[in-house]
């Protein structure tokens, strides 16, 4: 589980769905939730909140250009790579925070990921959860 601390900066609601923008290290991470400010106390602009997403939901890209529908594009630096037969685990630094991605070994090889290089971590808004501080 990747857990990043942030602050809610914007909430857009339609029906029971809300698109919540959270400031994390001066970058915006958006999360789509089935909650509204009316139904949930935690949904308030300015609230401190944890942004949570699974390692297997983190897509990696290098030299990303063109249009892409994924809303969360986080510029990271590769810190460590662990290679298995089928899977690879890539640990990254995101402005001092740790983000981990688990992708297939094939994908990691095709991207020729090496330590210390710049890489973009992509996470769909539908895969980002929000949780209060413990």
């Amino acid at each position: 589980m990747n857990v990043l601390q942030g602050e809610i900066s914007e909430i857009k609601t339609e029906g029971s769905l809300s698109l919540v923008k959270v400031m994390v290290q001066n970058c915006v991470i958006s999360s789509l939730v089935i909650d509204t400010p009316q139904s949930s106390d935690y949904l308030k602009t300015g609230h401190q909140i944890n942004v949570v997403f699974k390692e297997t939901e983190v897509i990696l890209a290098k030299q990303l250009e063109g249009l892409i529908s994924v809303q969360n594009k986080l510029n990271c630096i590769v810190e460590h790579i662990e290679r298995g037969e089928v899977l690879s685990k890539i640990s990254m630094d995101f402005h001092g925070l740790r983000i981990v991605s688990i992708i297939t070994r094939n994908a990691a090889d095709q991207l020729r990921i090496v330590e210390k290089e710049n890489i973009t971590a992509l996470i769909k808004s539908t895969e980002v959860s929000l949780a209060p501080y413990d």
Partner: protein
Amino acid sequence: MNLNLDFQIREKDFVTLYGPSGSGKTTTLRILSGLTQPDTGFIKVNNEIWLDTEKKINLSVQKRKLGYVFQDYALFPNMSIKENLTFALEKGQKKNIIDELLETMELVQLKHLKPEKLSGGQKQRVAIARALVRQPKLLLLDEPFSSLDIEMRLKLQDFILRAHRLYRLTTILVSHDISEVYKVSNKMFVIENGTITKQGDPPSIFSSSLTSRKFQFVGEIVKIENENIVYIVSVLIGNNIAKIIATDQEIQGLQVGSKVLVASKAFNPILRKIE
């Protein structure tokens, strides 16, 4: 420690009293049943006053219409299963309830055996059936499944739920098994140091730490496999085993038997009609 409680339960609710041992859960059941006398108290069930210390009203254990199931089965060893049930009949009560209960609790095949011939789970089924002989409206269960293995526990939870619905019972269970609380009860009271600290439905009490999760279940870990890079954790949720991918960091502090919250975003499950 002072036990100081004030709560109301609706008819046909299945309520769990949840909390650490020594917090006053069992004493609460004993006070409801009349086995323990509180210093002061008031108990009203369906417009009938069971206890009012101010007016010196105190209905005896026998007159309070309730069934009570303890952790140890407390069956008469010298009587057969059927005799154990028959013994619980009230004077003048029709005997057909005995056969009905034997059937409901799937004890017909065992009715002539003595308790010593039965497994723990079977004995507890007899104890539940016996508690229902007088057709009480209130059923009290004091950690009835805690000495049983997980499979037996799950089965007995189903029996309890069946009885709860069939006999339109109001049931109060003492338990500190989270998955059990989730499965059987629609309301819970958390009792700590003799007072109620939280109350509500189990999901809202247990899941406060993951606010935006709409797709979540509580279960028990039955297997953890290391698959290089990731772990595959098998979690028993209700009667189903779910397999979940986890990282080394995620499984820290977890082992077989640990109770866990399994949560996902609501956006990727697929729904499909089954004929």
